[in-house]
């Protein structure tokens, strides 16, 4: 049985035509994924029991003649920062190596209700902090297209699984680019929805005002269908938006004639030449499709990295305070006293990047520095959001690179934290503004490394973003 890699609609057609069952598809994909995993380390854990139970429910629904749901039988990989009841969720941290959540994230509940089949949990940077997936306590992920290179991060395992065909689609999380950058490095589609579009209930908190759950997929359509099932108001997350969720696939009619697009000049300065050439060719394609492309300015961009690494680390230092040896599985054996337990548990449990960010976040929030760093960064964040608001008064969407360069080599940047942070420059601005943004494949370098084009749109205007991405994807295929 050769049943991969299939799209969501191919899986649905195959199931309804009885060419294969959901259980067969789950078994075959699990077999393939387990065989492939040593090459990439994309999965930290497989959940065959849960997968086969979900697949069996889909098969029963089809046998009864019921609608099996929009994600019927679709094999899904889930980043290991998203809670799955009864299935170990480690956040790629030694601290949570044995943690078994007592509840499911809302996104998990919704995707299973829609017929999705969760195959397992994917590797990532520890607590989603990193841009290369090298900060996992359980070893790095290798890029399936170039094994000596990183898959990007922090959702590196999810991107690698989708690129490798060991899952049809995946859930990732994005705080400053952690879905879009790995999608770009692995040549798949990755979507960071509007902040509040998808409930964060059950997403392990890194920086609460910036955290998003979003889809990774091999096609724009699959990403849109997955987002459709997980989006919408959730009473368990007060920051989830009470705005209606439009039908995303309906907007994907291929017609982008007359769409006004902005090309931010600040995003074209520091590209490696091949990335620049590919983005330029992508923009030419969009012009051919009838889009009106004009240059725009987003002047606060130069301050975005500084702004982000103050706000994100400040929030992280607070969110990670809960890992203290009392509630979450790991306690240092060197815990003679209560304060010793706190210090040793955290000192031994967190990896270097988490400690660095906890230190930076604690510093910028500490007495005497709060105004100079944290409050100032919040004001700069408002300026970055204002840049976008002004741009969107003139254009319908913004196109830009995702990363200044394609996938880099394992070990290349791990000893230079600032260089690693600076590589997030083009994704961080959209995160700070909370607007929807995505990465869509935009060709490959001579060496065969994928490059992603980023599309950014107005708050809650995922339909325009998907319409443009889908039209671009079709044009690229021709």
């Amino acid at each position: 049985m050769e049943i991969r890699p299939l799209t969501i609609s191919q899986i649905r057609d195959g199931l309804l035509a009885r060419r294969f069952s959901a259980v067969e598809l789950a078994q075959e994909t699990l077999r393939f994924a387990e065989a492939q995993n040593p090459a990439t380390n994309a999965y930290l854990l497989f959940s065959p029991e849960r997968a086969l139970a979900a697949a069996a429910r889909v098969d029963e629904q089809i046998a009864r003649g019921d609608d099996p749901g929009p994600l019927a039988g679709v094999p899904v990989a889930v980043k290991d920062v998203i809670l799955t009841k009864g299935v170990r969720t480690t956040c790629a941290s030694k601290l949570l190596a044995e943690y078994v959540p007592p509840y499911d994230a809302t996104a998990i509940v919704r995707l299973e209700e829609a017929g999705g089949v969760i195959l397992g949990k994917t590797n990532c940077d520890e607590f989603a902090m990193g841009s290369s997936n090298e900060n996992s306590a359980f070893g790095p992920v290798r890029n399936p297209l170039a094994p000596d290179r990183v898959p990007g991060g922090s959702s590196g395992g999810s991107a690698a699984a989708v690129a490798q065909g060991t899952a049809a689609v995946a859930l990732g999380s994005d705080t400053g680019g952690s879905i879009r950058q790995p999608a770009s490095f692995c040549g798949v589609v990755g979507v960071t929805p509007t902040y509040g579009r998808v409930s964060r209930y059950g997403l392990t908190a890194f920086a609460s005002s910036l955290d998003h759950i979003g889809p990774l997929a091999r096609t724009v359509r699959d990403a849109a269908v997955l987002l459709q099932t997980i989006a919408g108001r959730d009473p368990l997350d007060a920051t989830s938006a009470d705005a209606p969720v439009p039908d995303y696939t309906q907007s994907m009619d291929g017609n982008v004639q007359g769409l006004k697009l902005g090309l931010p000049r600040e995003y074209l300065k520091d590209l490696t030449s091949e990335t620049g050439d590919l983005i330029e060719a992508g923009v030419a394609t969009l012009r051919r499709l009838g889009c009106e492309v004009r240059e725009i300015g987003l002047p606060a961009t130069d301050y975005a990295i500084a702004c982000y690494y103050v706000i994100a680390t400040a929030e992280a230092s607070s969110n990670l305070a809960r890992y203290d040896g009392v509630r979450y599985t790991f306690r240092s054996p060197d815990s003679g006293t209560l304060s010793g337990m706190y210090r040793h548990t955290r000192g031994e449990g967190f990896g270097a990047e988490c400690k660095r960010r906890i230190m930076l976040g604690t510093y910028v929030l500490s007495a005497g520095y709060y105004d100079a760093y944290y409050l100032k960064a919040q004001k700069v964040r408002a300026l970055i959001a204002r840049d976008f608001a002004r741009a969107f008064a003139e254009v319908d969407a913004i196109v830009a690179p995702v990363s200044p360069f394609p996938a880099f080599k394992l070990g290349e940047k791990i000893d230079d934290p600032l260089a690693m942070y600076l590589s997030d420059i083009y994704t961080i601005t959209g995160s700070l503004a909370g607007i929807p943004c995505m990465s869509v494949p935009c060709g490959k370098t001579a060496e065969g490394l994928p490059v992603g084009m980023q599309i950014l749109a107005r708050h809650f205007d995922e339909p325009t973003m998907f319409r443009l991405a889908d039209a671009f994807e079709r044009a690229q295929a021709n």
Partner: protein
Amino acid sequence: MKIAEREVRYVAELANLDLSEAEVHKFQADLDEILGHVERLNEIDTTGIEPMAQVLYAAHYAVNDTATLRDDRARPPLGTDVALANAPQSGEGYFKVPKVIER
């Protein structure tokens, strides 16, 4: 130097992080470099700009502070056994920790 070794140790204490001597020196160098970059925030004029803590207000979405709160209704909690299931040490329905008062 943006940050002295003394400050690194103080911040580690605030964060309840036990650091090795090597980590203290590494983080001093790293934080110094990162804070050097963060300094550029001072170049941009933010006079009269309100700090932005939340995205959805900026998106003119939420009409009032309580619009997104759920109804205040009791619902069954996880229960003691479930809540304690991941504790490194528990007993009699409680989380157990080392002695709090040190002598």
